[in-house]
């Protein structure tokens, strides 16, 4: 599309003539990122002041011009390619750190503060920001949040979304919202994280900062097989020992890296783990002993501890040089990203190697062993069309392999345009339809970063939901019937929070099964109607625990839907929901990282049954006893805002799912 001279004039008046670029070089240079996607915008607008963002978005919304927010453009998914043209918003000048408060533990920043700059500012104060994507020296905080890119430390410290306290968010219509995880109502902030700018712009961020650990100890362990290395990580988690990070590589990668960086890695090792522990010296010593025992019991070939800072640096040198080692081999490097349940990692990686060999491409394979997240780095020459085709095929097949093993097509790189097509392999038709509805609710005119995430023509390609639990199917049938007959429903668990007296209560009581307690991945799957007390006793019997409040008398679904335990929300990795029209939607699974699509777990947390009925939840469990002292929060009443109203209108146009929490029971 072309932008009319009148609009360009208005844009120039708003931002200054020097900040609106329409020359062919600037357009070409703002149409790419680290992926192979290139799409030229029609104009580039550089924003120097956050106060100008709202009028700018309002102007673009009024003129129905698509816009693509662009920060450092380091993503590997084509997330900031202007597929439908429009205006690219260059937000890079917005990089001020407004405030660092070490007493309350937060930093307040403009959206495009470089993550590395924040770390540099925090280091002299003895603090650090937990997420550490590999590109942290150049990537920006809003970019990290938009992709939910979290890096290696997320096993211990949580992902970027968990480390963000609040954001100022500008919707595609130009309205500003302050979003927090703990505010009543749906966790909008959790939904925006990983949305790749398709739901709006981030104007300002408050992030959590933590006191820097006094001691860090790094270990190198080599194993005779991938399976034994992954088993070691599972055993570590089982013992309640959560390392700062666990980085791993297979033999092919170790050899390539060692030849390039000479980091002292043994080339004959089938798998290699770099494990880092942090905390006080006493605990590190204890943990190091446990770590060594576990490594030895899993048959590790070598176990080395870095004694000095120089040795530690040397151990990391190889891991950090992995990209450089590949970049020196050919002009282009395609970095893939997939996540599978940790226990599936050895089988999935063996399969990925087969795909790489079958497609005849050269690739290294790095993985964050703790999260089940792996990154194949395939080298090729984009000038050679045959090679490029083979690489695309390999990446596509690798992602399909992930899905086959119960994984996701993106752990932290996002979907963008590059992985849009494989989304249809991962999600059912109903789930993708829900993604589309969310996008439509936030952005009815499809202006904010259009044509991303949701695959084109998914209705034909995606498979329908395959739920076969009779209780869930019965509930779905009942909801469908009520939808057809326009009968309203009030969704409850044990009705302990809502205390509803309405006539049409739809209870989750029939969903009372604990489906699985998986002590390999340390995940549990339970239906929403399970009582929290029952769940805790079952976990105790099995020698596990979860971050659930002991004094909560209601059901698991009720706990989540009423946002009664804020800490538990971040533990949920998978969710199943029946929508007001009776569609069954599945999202996530036993995955530590998932950046594919909108985070539905966060959307339905705090929705109090107004958007859908939660039927099943997958969440993290622990081998050690957890603190249950926190009291559950009473259900807070929520005055629906414009975001909620728009979404409710999309999901439940007839207003059939009524929630007393939103004052709509009657």
């Amino acid at each position, binding site marked *: 599309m072309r932008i009319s001279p009148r609009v360009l004039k208005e844009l120039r008046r708003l931002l200054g003539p020097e900040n609106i*670029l329409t*020359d*062919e*070089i*600037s357009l*070409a*240079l*703002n149409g*790419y*990122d*680290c992926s192979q996607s290139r799409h030229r915008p029609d104009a580039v607008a*550089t924003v120097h002041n956050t106060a100008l963002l709202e009028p700018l978005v309002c102007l673009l919304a009024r003129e129905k011009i698509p816009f693509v927010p662009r920060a*450092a*453009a*380091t993503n590997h998914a084509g997330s900031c390619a202007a597929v439908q043209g429009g205006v690219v918003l*260059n937000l*890079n*000048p917005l990089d001020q750190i407004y405030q660092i408060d070490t007493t309350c533990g937060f930093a307040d920043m403009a959206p495009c503060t*470089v993550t*590395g*700059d924040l770390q*540099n500012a925090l280091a002299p104060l003895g603090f650090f920001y937990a997420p550490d994507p590999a*590109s942290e*020296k*150049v990537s920006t905080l809003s970019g990290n949040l938009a992709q939910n890119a979290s890096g290696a430390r997320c096993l211990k410290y949580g992902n970027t979304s968990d480390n963000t306290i609040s954001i100022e968010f500008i919707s595609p219509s130009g309205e500003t919202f302050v979003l927090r995880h703990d505010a009543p109502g749906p966790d909008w902030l959790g939904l925006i994280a990983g949305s790749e700018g398709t739901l709006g712009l981030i104007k300002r961020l408050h992030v959590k900062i933590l006191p820097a650990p006094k001691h860090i100890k790094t270990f190198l362990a080599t194993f005779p097989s991938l399976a034994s290395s992954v088993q070691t990580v599972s055993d570590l988690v089982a013992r309640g020992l959560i390392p700062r990070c666990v980085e791993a590589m297979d033999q092919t990668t170790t050899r390539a890296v060692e030849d390039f960086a000479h980091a002292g890695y043994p080339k004959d090792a089938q798998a290699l783990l770099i494990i880092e522990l942090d905390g006080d010296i006493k605990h590190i010593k204890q943990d190091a002993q446990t770590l060594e025992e576990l490594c030895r019991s899993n048959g590790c070939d070598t176990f080395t501890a870095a004694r000095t800072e120089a040795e530690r640096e040397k151990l990391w040198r190889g891991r950090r040089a992995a*990209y*450089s080692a590949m*970049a*020196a081999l050919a*002009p*282009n*490097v395609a970095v893939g990203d997939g996540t599978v349940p940790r226990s599936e990692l050895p089988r999935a990686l063996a399969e990925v190697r087969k795909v790489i060999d079958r497609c005849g491409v050269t690739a290294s394979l790095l993985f964050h062993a703790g999260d089940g997240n792996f990154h194949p780095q395939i080298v090729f*020459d*984009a*000038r050679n069309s045959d090679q490029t085709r083979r690489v695309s095929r390999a990446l596509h097949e690798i992602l399909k392999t992930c899905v086959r093993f119960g994984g996701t097509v993106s752990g932290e790189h996002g979907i963008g345009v590059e992985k849009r097509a494989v989304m249809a392999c991962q999600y059912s038709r109903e789930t993708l339809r829900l993604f589309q509805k969310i996008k439509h609710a936030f952005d009815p005119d499809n202006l904010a970063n259009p044509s991303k995430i949701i695959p084109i023509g998914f209705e034909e390609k995606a498979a329908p939901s395959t739920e076969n639990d009779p209780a869930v199917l019965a509930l779905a049938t009942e909801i469908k019937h009520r939808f057809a007959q326009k009968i309203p429903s009030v969704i409850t668990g044990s009705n302990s929070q809502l205390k509803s007296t309405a006539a049409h209560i739809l209870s989750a009581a029939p969903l009372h099964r604990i489906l699985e307690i998986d002590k390999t991945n340390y995940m549990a799957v339970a239906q929403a109607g399970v009582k929290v007390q029952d769940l805790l006793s079952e976990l105790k019997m099995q020698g596990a625990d979860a971050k659930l409040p002991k004094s909560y008398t209601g059901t698991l679904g009720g706990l989540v839907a009423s946002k009664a335990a804020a800490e538990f929300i971040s533990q949920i990795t998978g969710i199943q929901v029946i929508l007001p029209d009776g569609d069954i939607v599945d999202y996530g699974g036993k995955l530590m990282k998932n950046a594919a699509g909108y985070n539905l777990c966060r959307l339905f947390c705090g929705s109090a049954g107004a958007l859908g009925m939660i039927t099943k939840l997958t969440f993290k469990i622990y081998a050690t006893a957890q603190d249950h002292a926190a009291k559950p929060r009473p259900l807070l009443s929520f005055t629906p805002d414009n975001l909620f109203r728009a979404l409710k209108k999309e999901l439940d146009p007839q207003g059939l799912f009524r929630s007393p929490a939103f004052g709509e029971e009657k």
Partner: protein
Amino acid sequence: MKKKKFSLSSPLRIGGPAGARSLKESVDYCTRCNACVQSCPSYLLHREEAYSPRGRNQIIRLLAERKIKISDNTPLIQDVTRTCLLCARCTAACAGALPMADHVLALRRAAGWSFLPGPLKMFLRLHGTRPGTFERLLSLLRLLRRLGLVHLLRISGLLRLPALQWIRHADNIVPRRAHSLRKMLKKQGINPHPEEADMLYLPSFETQYLNAEQARAVLRLLNSKSPCILLNMPSGLFEYIYGDLALSLAQAKQLLTVWNKLAGKRKLPVLTDSIEIYGFLKHFPVLFAAYPAWHKRAEAFAAKVLFVTDLAPARPTKTSASEGLCALDTSSILYPANDTAAKARKILKTHFGKNFVECEYSRFVTPAGGLAFVRGAQAQETALENVKDVARRQITQVYCLSGLAALELNAALRRHYPQARARHIVQMQAEP
């Protein structure tokens, strides 16, 4: 005069550790990962993709693929190539260590832009082509300066004119006292061409003509070592950056021939105190990659090139707290000086102990290689950022790998933060 046709194809090879490549191929190796962007001082001032190393690479790629024309976009392309400081910080940050300064230089050469004021370029070129005339002219200019001509121009406001701003800048950074290495050697009775020598010495421009203190330090350092032969000839670097590539190659070939003749079978090492020349000489194998007859000789030569930090081992001496804090400025040109910087850091750490502050100017560089003449406001801004950095950390001494960077930084410090001073690293090494 017939205008030269713009073409990016050249037999000249450029390359980093991965080997010599053509310009097009080297640019194709940019994976657009953006690791370079935060290291680029020019990008940090402009905040636009075109002014980033990644953007510059893509512009060259588009030009080479004939997707854009230089004639349609001259002002922007000229500006993005002019604002590149050739500081090589992007190369240090790049996963593939792409020589992006070489990419920009290739574009400048192809477009025929040197960005050096005409009279200054003609004058500096004489240093390589007619050294005698150059010295005589230099003496004349110094005399005029002593007579107060520059002062007169300054107070008349003429030096504010863009075409004459370089005179003001040169007057700011060049020490008042006249200096010539040749005369200094004569005065001290040192034979620049001894019969028996263990080393060849290629002096920097600052040591030869600008900075007497640096020259004295070099001589002290050399006196403590074995006798060496002074090579009073150009390396080809000036022409490589600002002038004629053919002339640059001819000068480099001449240097190789002289080295071969003087060093003979013993393959004597060649020492220099200019980090810019050092980087350029080390890069000779890539420069001659397309010329097989010279390539082998260039490789042998490059292996024997030394920087002053290679000479003196770090000597532990006691430092009192009153000496104040010290930092290292690693600004260089064309190629990153990582190994040299590590050696310099070790020397300073040994001497200053805890008084040595690990302070990489992470965001801004001290202009090195005389680039300050071409950048106007940007030069002032970067210099001021460096001064702020020094003042914020209460550093009193900054040691630079580049003599010109030391002069630049010293001028800025003298003006804004006189408590600190900048010197070349050799001045620390040769301290009595």
